[in-house]
């Protein structure tokens, strides 16, 4: 990766954002909602990738962060009648706090220990949503569409039930996460993260407190995930324990690996691809998650760097 490619990078990533925005005018209604969903999950994956692809830390607990955002926004709308913006803020702030506490506890772990610990904390969070099911309605979950007031900006009212509203809010959240992660990754901090991924001990000997940077990566990654979760609640209304389950920790890993771990575009690509793959598979069989397993095994054997990773290796070395 060189820094001389700044213009190319900027143009490419902005083009993607613009293309996504324009797509809403040409997509049929089925794909319209799908792409909105893909963008929200895409933001989740982008956040996850900051930790895995760039800092080299594999977490199996990101469902905890997504769910904190989801419940943070969902519960405040459902029980306190919060408006969308306040609910979103609560979701993000709550995730930030959870991530910071988690990060402080686990910062000295790495590799397998970190993986297992993240998995367990996420499972504990999942169980907590079930334990307090009088409030959270556990597995069944609850729906906030009736409580959620439309967004009021400059006198105009934007109800969340409107499909364009869903699309554009999803797009906005994704765009911000996307651009932010490109900026971070190409900044001095991003360089340090990559160095940590490549060789943590050496990076310490270059004078970097690697624990501090790992903590930072974790908190940023988690907060983006939390923002995605809060957005999901506001746009798609359903808040339930499933989103805190281990499945939603494995999904961002899957999406990122398919699309290309350690690339910015990869996570979005992977999310989109897998979304449709699972969609098609679920039309064919009840055990459609088999597809997930098969894809993971195939990936790891033949395409470990994912799609964008392969493209970067062969044709476009300047891709961040």
């Amino acid at each position, binding site marked *: 990766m060189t820094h001389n490619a700044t213009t190319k990078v900027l143009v490419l990533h902005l083009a993607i954002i613009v293309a996504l925005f324009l797509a809403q005018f040409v997509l049929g209604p089925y794909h319209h909602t799908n792409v909105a969903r893909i963008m929200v999950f895409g933001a989740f994956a982008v956040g996850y990738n900051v930790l895995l692809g760039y800092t080299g830390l594999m977490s199996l607990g990101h469902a905890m962060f997504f769910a904190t955002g989801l419940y943070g926004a969902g519960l405040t709308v459902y029980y306190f009648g919060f408006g969308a913006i306040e609910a979103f803020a609560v979701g993000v702030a709550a995730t930030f706090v959870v991530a910071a506490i988690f990060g402080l506890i686990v910062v000295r772990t790495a590799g*397998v*220990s970190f993986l297992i*610990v993240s998995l367990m904390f996420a*499972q504990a969070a999942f169980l907590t949503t079930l*334990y307090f099911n009088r409030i959270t309605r556990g597995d069944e979950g609850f729906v906030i569409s009736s409580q959620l007031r439309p967004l009021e900006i400059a006198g105009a009212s934007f109800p969340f039930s409107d499909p364009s509203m869903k699309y554009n809010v999803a797009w906005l959240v994704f765009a911000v996460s996307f651009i932010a992660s490109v900026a971070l990754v190409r900044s001095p901090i991003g360089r340090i993260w990559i160095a940590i991924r490549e060789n943590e001990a050496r990076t310490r000997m270059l004078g970097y407190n690697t624990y501090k940077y790992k903590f930072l990566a974790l908190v940023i990654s988690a907060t983006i995930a939390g923002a995605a979760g809060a957005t999901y609640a506001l746009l798609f209304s359903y808040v339930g324990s499933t989103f805190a389950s281990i499945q939603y920790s494995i999904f961002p890993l899957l999406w990122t690996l398919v699309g290309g771990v350690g690339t910015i575009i990869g996570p979005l690509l992977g999310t989109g691809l897998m979304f449709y793959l699972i969609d098609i598979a679920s039309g064919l069989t009840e*055990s459609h998650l088999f597809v997930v397993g098969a894809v993971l*095994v195939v*990936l790891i054997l033949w395409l470990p760097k994912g799609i964008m990773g392969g493209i970067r290796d062969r044709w476009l070395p300047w891709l961040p």
Partner: protein
Amino acid sequence: MDFGPYLFLALLEGMVTAFVLALTALGLSLVFGVLRIVNIAHGEFFMLGAVLAWWSVSLVGDLPLVGFILALLIGPLIVGGIAIATDWLILRRINYNPESTIVATIGLLYIIQQAVLTLYGPDARPVPAPIYFRIDFPWFGYSGYKLIVAGMSGLLILASWIALSRSKLGLYMRATQLNEEMAQAFGVPVRRIYALVFAVGAMFAAVAGVLVVPIRQADYLMGLEPLLLSFIVVIIGGLGNLKGTLVAAFLIGLTDGIISVMISPTLAKILATLLVALVLAVRPGGLFGEQEA
């Protein structure tokens, strides 16, 4: 029931949990110790043992004891076979790379789980115990079979302990764990040991599944809980440290069993996680693991 007897009941339950957990976690720890990889599909091997037990018992019909003995033979053998196939087809190809193995075994988890879903269905099905007898304590009756489960797990653990420390195979395994290159130089068939250890680890989980299934029903999702509990045990005991694993298994198993009985299973799991958090905050390598400089 008064508190005393209630506690005693909880202790019995905890003990059974602990023994089964020790067996399961031992499999995971053994694999990490020798191959340095984590098998995320470990819980699925447990589940397979349980499901295969249901199948063999249903084959034999009226003789649950025969079915059960059949299960103890077939279950681990089939699971061992799957493990060896996994080793040949996947693990060797990725050269036992830790991160790749995690991803590959997550994939394996889904493949096994969904395959069982297709063939066995989503329902939980009970399996009759091979022997039914009741031990009558002054305050309550307790299932004799549960004590047999504990006993058999204990025997198996003891047997593997002896095998590991006394037999030639055990020697090969320990040598490979300590220093792979040296072991290879001394003629230890390292590749085959890897396959064997992976299979043995899987079989331990399968046996645990077979033993446990009369106590709880068999369903395709039952592998997650033993996986997570095993992880807790292995983290606290120190990755790859077999003694630590056993101690931690008893600690966690007893705690989980007692709290599950006296308060709630969900709370027990939440507390176990907090316990791990505390341990890790103080000692990142686990209670018995290596310390970072």
